[in-house]
């Protein structure tokens, strides 16, 4: 009994807590990252224009997983580190937690590297990778060291700042041809499932809740906000995908690497000819909190396990990210990294039901034992 209590009590001082509503912004900005910039061609590879269904499937899937996450955190108490230790013991549980930490680091790497790739392709082909990523990581280090509340604040800014970008969908919709987009569902469930799997990278992010759960002031009240966030994400993806399907022809989409950025190309204002430059610059506000959250999650786990000062782990991880970014130096490797992160993310999501079941069983056993 003592032993369990010892781990379960993840005590976070009151001044570090966040209000439940902010969970909406955290989950949403963790989900929306680089994925949305080019997921149209990924999901339509197998199921063409029917792949909007796969977005809905992913949405339902994520909603169920979110429910499972909340359930297991409630009964397991605390965060994923506590659950792991209860279920698997100190060593195996600790190992699994470290794997999760590495996974968050992988997410941070994927998002950051892919975004730098976007900048290289679209804006500055001769960008100095070393200097740019150094400055970028300095900023991220500064924000993450500032603490979870600071990162949360940044998430709020990022979500609000990027809402106007949605209005720009108006331009491609005006150009699009409605005659060619009819919902004749022509693909099998298998194709749709493959699309779902290929597009899952854009939906990753709810796993972070496994770590920041103790930071929510009133976790029960945050449930609905988390679900709202997922719902909002699905809506945005659906709107983005449908606009892309209107604007591009089915075969053309396969030749487009960054569908959403290409959509900004058609936007024209009297004072700006090429909107994609502003769009990409503004997207920085989406990428920064995204990377910060992932890095925070990755560094929080060692702190929970070994009680190391989080500043040190953040610094170490930043150095690791810097080296890794320099290793991925061409388009091919970035592509591979994306595919790899997508696959890993898919299995991490599949791991959530396992945790759910285990924590339920543990809870049952424990309460019976106590009785």
């Amino acid at each position, binding site marked *: 009994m003592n032993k369990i209590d010892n781990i379960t009590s993840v005590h976070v001082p009151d001044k570090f807590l966040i209000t439940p509503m902010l969970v909406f912004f955290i989950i949403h900005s963790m989900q929306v990252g680089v994925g949305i910039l080019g997921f149209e061609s990924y999901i339509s590879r197998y199921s063409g224009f029917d792949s909007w269904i796969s977005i809905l499937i992913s949405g339902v899937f994520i909603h169920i997983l979110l429910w499972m996450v909340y359930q297991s955190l409630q009964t397991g108490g605390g965060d994923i580190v506590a659950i792991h230790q209860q279920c698997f013991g100190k060593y195996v549980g600790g190992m699994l937690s470290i794997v999760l930490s590495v996974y968050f680091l992988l997410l941070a790497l994927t998002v950051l590297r892919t975004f730098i790739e976007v900048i290289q392709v679209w804006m500055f082909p001769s960008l100095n990778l070393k200097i740019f990523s150094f400055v970028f990581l300095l900023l991220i280090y500064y924000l993450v060291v500032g603490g979870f509340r600071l990162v949360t604040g940044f998430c709020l800014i990022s979500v609000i700042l990027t809402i106007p970008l949605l209005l720009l969908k108006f331009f491609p919709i005006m150009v699009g*041809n409605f005659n*060619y987009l009819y919902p004749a569902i022509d693909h099998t469930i298998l194709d749709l499932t493959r699309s779902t799997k290929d597009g899952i990278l854009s939906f990753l992010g709810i796993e972070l809740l496994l770590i920041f759960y103790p930071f929510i002031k009133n976790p029960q009240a945050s449930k609905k906000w988390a679900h709202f966030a997922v719902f909002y994400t699905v809506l945005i993806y659906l709107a983005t995908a449908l606009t892309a399907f209107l*604007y591009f022809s089915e*075969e*053309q989409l396969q030749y487009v690497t960054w569908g959403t950025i290409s959509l900004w190309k*058609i936007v024209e204002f009297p004072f700006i*000819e*090429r909107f994609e430059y502003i769009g990409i610059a503004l997207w920085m506000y989406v990428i920064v909190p995204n990377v910060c959250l992932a890095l925070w999650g990755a560094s929080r786990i060692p702190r929970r396990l070994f009680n190391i000062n989080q500043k040190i782990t953040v610094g170490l991880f930043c150095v690791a990210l810097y080296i890794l970014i320099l290793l991925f130096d061409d388009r091919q490797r970035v592509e591979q990294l994306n595919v790899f992160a997508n696959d890993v993310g898919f299995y991490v999501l599949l791991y959530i039901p396992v945790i759910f079941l285990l924590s339920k069983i543990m809870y049952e056993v424990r309460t019976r034992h106590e009785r």
Partner: protein
Amino acid sequence: MRGKLLSVLCLIFAAGCNNIDSVEDRAIVQISGYDYIDENRIKGTVGIPQYGEESARTVEELNLTVETESLKEFDIQIQNESSKPLSMGKLEVNLYNEDLASRGITEFMDILSRDPRIGRNIYLGIVDGDTQKLIEGEYNQNETTAKYLKGIIENNIDQNLPKTNLHYFLYAYYADGLDGYLPYLKKKNSHIEVSGISIFKEASQVAVIPAEDTLILKLLKEKVEKGSQTIQTEDGRVGMEITDSNTSYQVKKTGDVPRFFVNITMKGFINEMKETGVESQKNPTRINKLEEEFSTYYQSKAEEMIELFKDNETDPIGLGNIYKNRMRNFDKQVWEEQYSEVLVEVNVDLKITGMGISL
């Protein structure tokens, strides 16, 4: 504290260390065109506006022409000839001559779709004759050839020309069961005119629709709000302006070959009529007769045009695409074999709403 301040200051000053490119120091390409010379060589021309002194208020244009064997070389050679670095970001019109177009412009499409600096709103055009002469021609003292040409195409899109730009062409170029079309331009003494539409099959031009028929293609493709057409009726020439139109497609599959039903509804008014006899004009049967005559004209013209497309195995209307999107199990090969046998029924429902303000 002091260290932080210092580092912020450093960042601010470091930001000024970048090379500055001012607009005057760059050659901004606004128009480019390519001509076919022989199998291995093409001739490329670019037009760069030279902004002179403020008082003169005229725009001069510098034209550079090079002959090369490949497109890659073209870029390098034209840079060699230019005294300032070229920027392609403001490219507005891209032209190909007819010989080149009928041999295919795949390579050009690849470059245009790949280069992030190129906008999607630029206009492509096919030139009847020599592209270089068209670009080098002087049309208007106050604007460049690119602006002039852009104005002509835009003005025509408002009237009888179906919507066209790089995006529309690429959409059709990549899509299955849809082919592209581009405006067909001609230099006439001191001006340029849109003398038709050139129809493509994939990346090669296969047919040209004359200027008087462009409205038919526009009607088949999109909503027309300002098209005008003059036809020969039993009693003289009558001109009509279309104020509103709508086209809907239906596919029915009975047996192996699908059948298409095209319903065009339109409204318009008569704006030109060479006829006397005021009494007969007031007569409602006269309007009915005109309505019928116009309907038959549009219907037969549309069917004729679709026949022309079938003969050339091209599909600018996108019948294949419509079929693919509405029916399951679309097979591209089967469709391409079937295409020449496909039945297309055009049905025009026309209403004349007015005869102008004089009797």
